[in-house]
Structures are given as structure tokens and as C-alpha cells.
């Protein structure tokens, strides 16, 4: 497969995953805002904006309308939902002949719908429905991809993009939340006082119900962290994503010949091992921040390694070997 095509499929999937993630966060932010005092609201928006790398001009803002507008419909803000979907679409457009037409139609429809919506049209009326339709649009794209595209190399690059992005954003979200909730001035707050925040974190990962099934509704910080970081079955946990990434790389290595894929596979295997064999008590003891930073660093290394192995590799060495 052409390197450019693999690259475009990878980025399409990453951007779309990011759009879905941001839609979920904004939706939950708007929803939880209803239940809390203004000081808590400000903190929550602060966390949320940090976790999606929002532009600095939004820092300190707790104006929900303003934030929703900037993070959803502002094309000039590259972290906004519409910008992510536009980028996903632009990448997919360049490889239209490699994908099923259903995939293209779905992403194009999603793009046109988001681009054609104004915040005033939905504000206070159907905000939740709108964000839900964005999430569903992204899920539908992945579902259509599974159902209509050959599960070959290209499909695997789509999986890598989706799961690498997911591992990254979940780790970042965990970092921002735990850093805020566990290390507040005056020591950690009691779970009762921050109950809604932990619920918010789980919901931000669509994992609240799944968590309750495993641990009941008894929310304990270390369990929440363990669940989102190390659970093998929750599709939004970092470990789950790491396992999916490793599996995809193995398939890609088989399709392309293993000769050159050693480094990528080693990095993916290391990330998976870090998470599969991690113990939550040890991690908390030695420092969650450092652990999460290490996970994020490994994700970044994998991203670099994909580029260097499959896309922008130096030609001379590739020809010599």
C-alpha cells in the first residue's frame, strides 16, 4: 500500500476519534455544569480545556456558550470538533478510491451536518442531541468501515489511528483529572465531595455504567483510575487501546514483511506490557503522574515510529537493505 494512503487513513481515524472525544467532553461539561457551584464549574471547564489542548485564549473561561462555540464550531481553532472532522474528511478525500463509498458518504454527511449547524440553533434546545449525533456519526463511520472495507492493511492503519488517539486522550484526561482531584491544596478531597467529578470522568470515557458493573456504584479514585487505565475489557481503557495497537501492528508487519517493522512492534509491545502488567497500588505509590507521562511519551514514540517505518522512511537505507 502507498505510504501516503496509509498516512491519510491513519490521520482520518485519529482526527475522527479526537472529534468524538471532544464532543463527549463538551456534552458532559454542559450537563454537569447544571449541578454545581460556579467555582466548581470554572475548575471543571479548566480541566476539560486542558485535557483537549484548547487554545490559550479560552483559559480561565467558564462561559459555557463561549467554550461550546469555540470548541465545536470554530474552524480556526484546530482542536474544535468541526476542524477535526474537516481534517478527517480532507485526509479521506485524498484516498477516496481506496475506501468504500459508504465510508466517504458517512464522513461527508457528518461534516456537512456539523458545518451547517449554528450554536444558536441548538443552544438550550437540543444541545445534547447535537453532540450525541456527532458521537453517533463517528461511531457509524467506524461501524461502516468494519462492515464495508477489507480488513487488510488499510483497515489496520485506521485501527492504529483510532486506538493510538484514544490511548493518548484517555491518558491525558486521567492525568488532568487526577492531578486536580487528588492533589488539591489541603490534601485530597473526599470522594463524597468530588463524587460528581469522578462520575464526570467515567462518563467522559463512556465508562460509568461499565465501571458500576465491575465495582458497583461505589466510586473510589484508585478504582476509577485502575478501570480507565488497566482494565482489559473496557474499550476506552488505555490498556485496551494498547492491545489493539499491538494487534494491528502485527497484521501490518505480516502484510509488509517484518524486516523493517521491528522498532514499531517493539514499542507497541512495550506499551502493552507496561499496561498489561501494571499494578494500580504500585503505580499510585511510585507516582501516577510519572506513569501517565510515560504512557503518553510511549504513544508519541509509536507515532514517530509509524512515520519513520511506513511513511517518511529514508529511501537510501530502505533501498540498501
Amino acid at each position: 500500500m502507498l505510504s501516503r494512503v496509509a498516512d491519510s487513513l491513519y490521520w482520518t481515524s485519529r482526527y475522527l476519534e479526537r472529534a468524538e472525544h471532544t464532543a463527549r467532553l463538551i456534552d458532559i461539561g454542559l450537563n454537569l455544569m447544571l449541578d454545581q457551584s460556579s467555582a466548581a464549574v470554572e475548575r471543571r471547564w479548566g480541566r476539560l480545556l486542558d485535557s483537549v489542548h484548547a487554545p490559550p485564549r479560552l483559559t480561565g473561561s467558564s462561559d459555557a456558550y463561549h467554550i461550546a462555540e469555540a470548541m465545536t464550531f470554530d474552524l480556526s481553532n484546530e482542536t474544535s470538533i468541526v476542524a477535526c472532522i474537516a481534517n478527517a474528511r480532507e485526509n479521506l478525500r485524498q484516498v477516496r478510491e481506496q475506501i468504500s463509498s459508504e465510508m466517504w458518504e458517512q464522513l461527508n454527511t457528518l461534516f456537512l451536518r456539523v458545518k451547517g449547524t449554528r450554536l444558536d440553533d441548538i443552544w438550550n434546545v437540543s444541545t445534547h442531541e447535537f453532540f450525541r449525533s456527532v458521537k453517533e456519526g463517528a461511531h457509524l463511520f467506524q461501524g461502516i468501515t468494519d462492515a464495508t472495507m477489507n480488513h487488510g492493511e488499510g483497515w489496520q492503519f485506521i485501527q492504529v489511528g483510532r486506538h493510538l488517539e484514544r490511548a493518548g486522550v484517555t491518558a491525558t484526561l486521567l492525568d488532568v483529572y487526577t492531578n486536580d482531584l487528588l492533589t488539591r491544596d489541603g490534601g485530597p478531597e473526599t470522594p463524597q465531595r468530588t463524587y460528581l467529578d469522578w462520575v464526570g470522568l467515567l462518563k467522559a470515557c463512556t465508562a460509568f455504567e461499565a465501571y458500576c458493573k465491575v465495582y458497583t456504584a461505589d466510586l473510589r479514585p484508585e478504582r476509577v483510575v485502575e478501570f480507565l487505565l488497566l482494565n482489559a475489557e473496557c474499550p476506552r481503557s488505555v490498556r485496551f487501546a494498547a492491545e489493539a495497537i499491538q494487534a494491528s501492528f502485527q497484521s501490518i508487519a505480516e502484510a509488509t514483511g517484518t524486516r523493517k517493522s521491528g522498532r514499531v512492534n517493539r514499542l507497541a509491545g512495550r506499551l502493552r506490557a507496561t499496561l498489561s502488567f501494571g499494578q494500580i497500588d504500585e503505580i499510585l505509590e511510585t507516582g501516577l503522574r510519572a506513569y501517565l507521562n510515560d504512557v503518553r511519551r510511549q504513544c508519541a514514540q509509536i507515532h514517530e515510529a509509524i512515520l519513520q517505518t511506513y511513511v517518511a522512511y529514508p529511501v537510501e537505507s530502505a533501498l540498501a537493505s
Partner: protein
Amino acid sequence: MPPDTLNATLSAEAPYDEMFGADGQCRPQYQALYKRLDEIPREELNRRQHAADLSFLHQGITFTVYGRDEGTERIFPYDLLPRIITGPEWETLERGLTQRIRALNLFLKDIYHEGRILKDGVVPAELVYTCRHFRREMRGVSVPRDIYISVVGTDLIRLRDGRFVVLEDNLRVPSGVSYMLANRQVMKRVFPRLFGNYGVRPIDHYGTALLSTMRALAPPGRPDPTIVLLTPGVYNSAYYEHAFLARQMGIELVEGRDLLVHDNVVYMRTTAGPRRVDVIYRRLDDDFLDPLAFRADSALGVAGLFNAYRAGNVALANAVGTGVADDKAVYAYVPAIIRYYMGEEPVIDNVETYLMTDGAQRRHVLDNLDKMVVKAVGESGGYGMLIGTHSTAAEREEFRRRIESEPRNYIAQPVLALSQAPCLIDGKVEARHVDLRPYILCGEQVTIVPGGLTRVALRRGSLVVNSSQGGGSKDTWVLNE
């Protein structure tokens, strides 16, 4: 809508009508269609036209008008009613087009090697050497099988007397063949019964024929050659066609940035490492192919490609420098070129053409500008053109000035009445001017799929059929009989 209102437009001055003879009678090949049009309610016709339009839109068979965040794509208007060509008419066309592509290939080989035709004075050497598309770099370069032109789209028009003549040859990167194929697909869906009973020759093998044409160019010692289609990219208005043809042939669609040259060998960058490329069906003009050899500012090409090509390690289709033979002033010499190389009379004539470099011809044209079509020699797509009968005095004055200052750059032809065919316009059947562009493939043998793109000037009375200038197209049926 009874189609006989069409007859009202017929008169002695009228152009050839594809459907009706001079006596106002429907031609035999159109009778079944005529009958069907008579039976079918107008609403039903409109419904089918609508279904066809939707089908194009959904399949994404579109031209791109692309802005940063607009993504507007426009369909190439499709006319529901087929244009019909009889078996014997086609037989003549096939013979003539085969003769023409053979002669033009011999001409290109000659002018890039010994130049006999120039020494013999059949074609003026100055004309060839001053051609904007003449590539000095190609002197003495051998191309596989001496095939310079692998793919041609020849524009034919039909004169009042019913004869087809060649209006121009497109020897560089002719486009439109995907519309020919798509039109047929849609036609089969919209008029299945009529189509099934008509005895229309199939065209679906075009992709296979194109692939074997490309395969014939592979360098020696490459029994299983890698063939790619090189596109300028998604911003090109014909990108849909590039993707479509790549898919039809089952080959990779590459952009310049996917290719690289190492030791005069071309590779494409794949996830499994660089993979050697043997034949490039390029849909990119000469100018942009290689920034080292041609335009240095080209970001679409591949550095070093031309050297790899000269070294014979990769084949390009069409070859570099074929544009010299579709220069509109060289066009005037094609009948002489056919006689010179083939020792035969041309089967299909040219349109009478005046060279502005010839004093007498130039005076004649300048005195009759309002009856002439003036064309810039190196342009295509209907750009840089004056249609005398539809021009203002100021436009004629402008072209007079241009012709006098750069006579080599212009030719003129009498304004010709393109034949007309019935079209469905706003729910009514009306006659519109049409031309015909068959696609000729030259590999181990010459292949012409029976049909072509019939382009329609959708505006009433307009003679311009180019898609870039508001034209549409319709399916072209070549009958067995």
C-alpha cells in the same frame, strides 16, 4: 412531448440532424427511440432524467469546484437521450482513426529522430521547431515500441453532408473517458428495455484494454510490470476520472510525492518499502513532470523522472513531447502526414484550416473574421478561441491584433455547423449541437472501444461543447448493424 416539433427547426441552412433526414423522416437507426419517446409520458422522462442525475451525484461522478471548506462538486450534465451511430458509419471511423494514430506515431518518431518529413519539405521544419510543445530533450530518445501516443481522444464533428471530420486531436492527456463509461452504466439502468433491444456494442472492456496498452510499454526484462496512474492530485478537475480509471485497471493511483527516482529507476513509496515502477500512465502535462527537466517550480512532478525515462527504465504514456502533433497549426498538415507515411489517402478528412503564417490565407481570414473560428494553436478545452459569428466587433478587433502580432500562434477555420441531436432540455425534447470524442488506444495493436463521449452544447444555438464551458454529454451507441 411529440418529438416531431424537432422537424420545425429543419431548413436548407440547417445542420445535419442525427435523428431526422433532410426529408424530415426519422432515420432508421433512430426509429425505435423515436417511437419510445412518443409513447413515454413527459413526467416519466423527467423522472428518469432526475434518477440519472442523482445516480451521478451519489456515485460522486463530479467535477470539482473546490474551496477551503466548501467541497462543492458539480455533476457533468448528462443528457438522457442516446446518440446513435450505425455499424457501417463506425467501421469507417475505426479505419480512419486507426490510420491517423499510426501516422501520428510515425510522425513523432520521425521528427524526434532523423526528421525525414521535414527534410522532404512536407511539413515545414520551422513550424515544428517553433511549436510550444516540441521537446528538444526528446531528440534521439527511443521510446518503447516507438509508441509515442498510447491514448488519444479525437474530436470529430459531422458536417451538413453527414461526413465525419476531425476537428482536433488530443494527444497529450485526453480526458473524459470515465464519463463515456459512466454514461453507459446509467443508461442501462434508466432505459434497460430499450437498450437491451437495440443491439448496442459494449464498451465495458475499456479498462482492460487500457491496461494491456500500458503493459505493452513495459521495459524489457520486466515480465510482471508495475503500472501506476500519475495524477496531479485531488484538486485537479479530472481527479474523479483518475481514481476511476485506476480502480478499473486495478493499479495504484499515485501523486508525484509518492514517487522517487534512485539511480535512474523510479520507485513508489509503499508501507513495505520502495517498489519499482515500470510504466506510468501519467495524467500530468509535460511541463510538470520533472522539475529538473522542465518547469522547476512544479511541485506535482518527480525529480529525476525524465532521466529515468531517457535511460529506458520507465515508460511514460503518453510519451513526452506528443503535444507537437496536436498543435493546431501542425494539425493542418495531418492529411499530408498520413499520405507521407502511410501512402494512403486519409479516411477521415480534416476541417479546412487557414494558417496565419501564410500571407494570403491570413488576409482572407482577417477579411472574413465574422465567419471564422480563430483558435490559439497550443490551447485546448475551448480556451483562447474566437467564434466569429458569435463575437462582438471589439473581440474581433482584439483577435485581429493578436493574429497580426503573433501569426504562428493562431489558426482559423470556417464556422461549421455541428450536427444536432435530440436532447431532453427542461422536460422538452429539443435539438442541440453535438460532437464526438472516441478514445483510441495504441499498444500491441490499435483498440477503439465502439463509442466515445458525445458532448452536447446545452445552450440553444451554442457551438461550444467543452465541459469547462457549459457543455454536457450523452451516451453514444454504436450499433452492431
